[in-house]
């Protein structure tokens, strides 16, 4: 059962809410755990064994690290060393499952992966590492750890949460509140709107163009790339709204995964706003450990004498950044296109890091301010181009296909071809999509101004408030891409 299906939001979730309300608060976490197991079984069936295996490994690793710290057997460096060895084994065991399911297809062996393996594996690593770093204490109850790793709203495609942020609300069994339920459902509706009205309408056109890009000229391909970026954003952020909204109904807060990414200043800022929880995970568990690694510190010192302070300062962050983007690319899948996608952003952010200080100096010297309309428009356009090219390679069948598409955009661009292009979507759906995207842009713009739209609407008088929600509900029912003539598209990020 995927989150965008009505069964999830309007049948499964209400049943859970009723059961949650009827259960004494002390045992509510137990109910959630039972629901998680049932939810997991419904999707992955026998593959739940691998999830249980991951929970046991993580639990034991956490416990062993914790006990090692409290015993007097080792102290100082030896303690640290032993803790790290246990942590390393725990990580390797968890990662090995991910590698087998996700990357063995590279050598021609493919399996159906347990649902959410890419997400919960990252959570197991963060949990074990945080215990080793002593930023959290070990969870003594294996059931509670299993609940944290399998919490049903997030198990399929994140957000990648941290144990420290989740434990209080997840295990507290807080009572349901009318405000949280209505607010959660309002967010679910907005998510369904993005998924069903925007993403699923664009899907057939994107599929068609990316399947046979050789049949289209550069103009259609460029629009196809923009369509895919829009589809991906509407789909992933829409599903996040459903996920976070459904958790909100249970009075459990999940971390945000999107913050108006298309209003970012540059590629680096974009990644602080797009798939935020993956970005912060990579920062905390790849970037910092590599930056602080002794061999790199030594390398930096040596480089100082050879190339000078300025360049040597850049060496360590650049190497760490390289591994961050390598991991980001590989995490998305086994294909070379994902690796390319990671390296694309590595190069871009590296160039940005070098150029930004010089550009800032130049702007200060010539009294050009960020708020200048021309500058901000240029930045927005630059980011838009960068993101769309990146997503085009990400979605392309192969790197060669991606380059061919790029070549067509540059050398084979004829606006006249738009007339005869067969998009696989009818004109009415295109019009609906166009207005829905404008609405999405307006909502994002309002959020960018730090205005909480749901709070604003809740302050309106009841008839206006309800009229807005009715309008949203019926726009989904009447214009959503479901039923005859449409294909319900599975969640894209659930496959990563």
């Amino acid at each position, binding site marked *: 059962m995927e989150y965008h*299906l009505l069964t999830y939001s309007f049948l499964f979730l209400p049943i859970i809410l009723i059961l949650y309300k009827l259960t004494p608060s002390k045992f509510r976490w137990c109910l959630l755990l039972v629901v998680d197991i049932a939810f997991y079984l419904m999707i992955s069936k026998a593959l739940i064994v691998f999830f249980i295996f991951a929970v046991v490994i993580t639990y034991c690793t956490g416990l062993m690290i914790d006990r090692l710290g409290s015993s007097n057997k080792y102290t100082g460096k030896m303690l640290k060393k032993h803790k790290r060895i246990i942590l390393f084994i725990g990580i390797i065991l968890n990662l090995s499952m991910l590698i087998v399911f996700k990357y063995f297809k590279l050598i021609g062996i493919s399996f159906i992966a347990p649902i959410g393996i890419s997400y919960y594996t990252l959570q197991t690593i963060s949990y074990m590492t945080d215990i080793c770093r002593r930023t959290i204490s070990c969870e003594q109850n294996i059931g509670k750890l299993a609940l944290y790793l399998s919490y049903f709203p997030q198990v399929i495609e994140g957000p990648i949460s941290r144990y420290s942020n989740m434990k209080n609300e997840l295990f507290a069994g807080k009572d349901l509140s009318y405000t949280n339920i209505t607010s959660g459902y309002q967010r679910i509706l907005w998510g369904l709107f993005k998924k069903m009205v925007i993403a699923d309408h664009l899907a057939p056109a994107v599929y068609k163009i990316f399947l046979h890009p050789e049949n289209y000229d550069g103009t259609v391909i460029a629009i196809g790339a923009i369509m895919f970026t829009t589809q991906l954003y509407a789909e992933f952020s829409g599903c996040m709204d459903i996920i976070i909204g459904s958790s909100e109904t249970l009075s459990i807060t999940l971390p945000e995964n999107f913050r108006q990414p298309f209003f970012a200043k540059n590629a680096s800022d974009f990644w602080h706003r797009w798939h935020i929880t993956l970005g912060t995970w990579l920062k905390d568990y790849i970037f910092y450990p590599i930056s602080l690694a002794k061999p790199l510190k030594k390398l930096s010192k040596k480089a100082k004498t050879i190339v000078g302070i300025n360049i040597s300062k850049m060496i360590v962050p650049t190497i760490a950044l390289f591994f961050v983007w390598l991991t980001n690319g590989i995490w998305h899948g086994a294909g070379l296109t994902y690796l390319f996608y990671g390296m694309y952003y590595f190069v871009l952010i590296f160039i940005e890091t070098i150029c930004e200080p010089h550009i800032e100096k130049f702007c200060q010297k010539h009294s050009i301010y960020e708020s200048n309309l021309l500058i901000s428009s240029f930045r927005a356009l630059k980011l838009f181009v960068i993101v769309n090219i990146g997503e085009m390679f990400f979605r392309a069948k192969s790197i060669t296909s991606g380059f061919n598409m790029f070549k067509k955009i540059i050398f084979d661009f004829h606006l006249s071809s738009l007339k005869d292009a067969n998009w696989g979507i009818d004109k009415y759906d295109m019009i609906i999509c166009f207005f829905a995207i404008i609405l999405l842009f307006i909502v994002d713009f309002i959020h960018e101004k730090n205005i909480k739209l749901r709070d604003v609407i809740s302050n309106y008088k009841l008839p206006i408030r309800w009229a807005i929600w009715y309008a949203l509900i*019926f726009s989904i029912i009447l214009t959503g891409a479901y039923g*005859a*003539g449409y294909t319900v598209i599975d969640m894209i990020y659930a496959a990563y």
Partner: protein
Amino acid sequence: MDNTKETYNNIIKAVLFFTGLIIISTLLTVFIYKDNKKNIYDTIAVNNKINEIKNEPNDSLQVIFYGDSECYSTFYPKILSSEFNISSFVCATAAQHICDTYAILNENIRTQAPKVIVLETNCIFRKPKNTGTDKDIAMNFLSNHLSMFAHHSDWKILAKKALPKKRFKHKKNNKGFVIRKNTIPYRGGAYMKITKKTKKIPKKNLEYLNQIKSLCDNNNIKLILVSTPSPKNWSYKKHNGIYKWAAANSVTYIDLNLEKSLTINWKKDTKDGGDHLNFSGAKKVTRHIGEYLKKYILLKE
């Protein structure tokens, strides 16, 4: 006390909100989705095809083809017209359900008097009407019980009526045929392995098939069932299922998957690795079926 009052207030608000939702849904159902379309799966596609046939001169078509994408990728009316002097039209729609075949045929015979109806058999095995997805129980329930969900896109029909017709006219009139020139070879080898096993026609579909047969009989139309070449969609089990029904009802059945004289080259004649035929494959099949249709029509005349 205050808490209890607030709870009651919230319950009343929720009840009122859902009542409003039901009232609006009812109004929409009464004013927009009032037509009885319970037996149509894809109203927009059905409507389009009905209108396309209405645009043809009355009683001008000798043969009408029905079915899904297998059908509109295969039968090319221009060849039938130029080489066999047969006027025809393809009334196939993407993933056509047999309930829609019946709905289109039922309307078509009001303005046309075809001699032959060709039904491509792939749609006979398509799961009976269900507008939701298999996975979405709630959506299935709503679609099966509320026409607003099942035919939610029908506002397009109203919009089409309201907007000037000129803007929506098709530039090329291939009489329902879709030209597909791509080639992705099929490399799976032989696919019609002889078996005695039979794939049963779903019960609901069987009812529609019988209704189509009666409609044809009542209007003096010959019904021909044709299975177009498709390693991805066709099998001997399906062949047996159709053959049994055709034999029991004295209906002509041509399985082109078993036709050796057809010489389909699976390296060149398929658009997508054995699912649909491309233009080259379509020309071969159209000429083959053209010969048959010509003989039959001449005989009848």
